[in-house]
């Protein structure tokens, strides 16, 4: 093997890599917050058949879960300007991620809600709890508890999927990788470095969500 590895050629671009990683984290922070919120709304509408939102969310979930993320992104960035809706690459990326995560988390959270035994809700109302109280303590929290690991995985998947946002010139981590590779032609060194950075990011996000989950979702401290 005659290939001479040169990681210095990647190190020279460390600033771009750091900025890219921060942008990726920013994307997923906003994307996950809004996406899971949207998913919660969708899940409640679908699980409790709130008209007409249940139908709307059904169409939305099927449309998004059965089309590729890259196509959704291109549609928003390149397609929508034809209708006069011109969004910059960051807005387009965030919207695509929120819309995508929203659809998947609708189904994940709905599974959690539907797993709540009816008797539990009936027991709560017999204790004269208000509808809001029932929803918050008896339905949503236990539902989120049940599906939290699945939800965490979905957030990580969407974060890794945000790499395709490089295609609309959003300067996230993969954009940095492609840029560096187009300058130093060190494909192996560049992509292995970036792969490891994604790995670390994914572990961090998972750890953070676990912490968050055990405090605010699973924990009993706030009740």
């Amino acid at each position, binding site marked *: 093997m005659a290939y001479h590895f040169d990681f210095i050629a990647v190190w020279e671009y460390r600033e771009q890599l750091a900025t890219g990683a921060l942008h990726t984290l920013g994307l997923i922070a906003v994307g996950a917050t809004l996406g899971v919120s949207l998913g919660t709304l969708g899940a409640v509408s679908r699980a409790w058949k709130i008209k007409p939102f249940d139908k709307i969310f059904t169409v939305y979930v099927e449309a998004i879960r059965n089309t590729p993320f890259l196509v959704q992104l291109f549609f928003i960035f*390149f397609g929508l*300007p034809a209708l006069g809706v011109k969004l910059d*690459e960051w807005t387009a990326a965030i919207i695509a991620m929120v819309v995508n995560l929203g659809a998947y988390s609708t189904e994940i959270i709905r599974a959690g809600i539907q797993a709540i035994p009816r008797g539990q809700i009936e027991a709560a109302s017999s204790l004269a709890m208000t509808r809001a109280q029932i929803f918050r303590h008896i339905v949503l929290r236990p539902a989120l508890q049940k599906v939290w690991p699945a939800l965490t995985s979905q957030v990580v998947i969407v974060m890794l999927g945000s790499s395709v946002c490089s295609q*609309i*010139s959003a300067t996230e981590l993969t954009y940095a990788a492609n*840029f560096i590779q187009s300058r130093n032609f060190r494909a192996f060194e560049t992509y292995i470095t970036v792969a490891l950075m994604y790995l670390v990011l994914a572990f961090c996000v998972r750890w953070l969500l676990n912490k968050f989950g055990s405090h605010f979702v699973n924990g009993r401290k706030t009740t």
Partner: protein
Amino acid sequence: MKSHAFPLGRTLATALLSVGLFATQLAHADVLENIKKSGVIRVAVPQDFPPFGTVGTDMKPQGYDIDTAALIAKDLGVKLELIPVTSTNRIPYITTGKADLVISSLGKNTDREKVIDFSDAYAPFFNGVFGPADIKVESAADLAGKTIAVTRGSVEDLELTKIAPPTATLKRFEDNNSTISAYLSGQTQLIATGNVVASAVDERTDKRDVLTKFIIKNSPCYVGINKGEATLVAKVNEIIAKSKKNGDLNKVSMKWLKHPLTAGL
């Protein structure tokens, strides 16, 4: 003994000398004379490089280079014989004398100049920044505060990265199609690409104009001619100059590149 060796040496020397003379005479065989004598000019043209040379539906070569070849043949009053070549074998066709001229979107560089001679430029070929009429940009410095779509890793990308002011935003895309889409959908104010791509896009869409703002790197096309054919070079230059003046070459440019010949050419 010595007197014997002498005549032999002289004969050899004479023989060598005459061979040498003959060889130089061959090399100096006037191609222009030959063209006129045979009534045919053989021109090497591309067949896979639109809009300079492609094969039409009638299986005949067509394009900017073919029309330029036709102009030259017409002026010389000879029949045109087209030889389809590829970008790798176009120069050998000239050096081995299989073609009289190579009109194959050939750029000039020092390596090529060692092997063949070049005429004056006959077609524009450059990388530049393009945009709509209402954005005033005449040089790299004017890009300050502008967004420019560019294909990552392309010559335009590498050059603009060096010369664009820091406030200019280069939005890099994976391939030419995305770069063009970004510009056409209005996601960027300007686009950096080749003039051939720009005019092809300009022709096919009425969404946005794709007008030349400034040239990043210019490498126009020249006619390639074998070494030592000064008369042919002079004749070709004369024809190119004439067709630039009388507008014939401009018509070719309008037909294939959809824009008039640039002033610098």
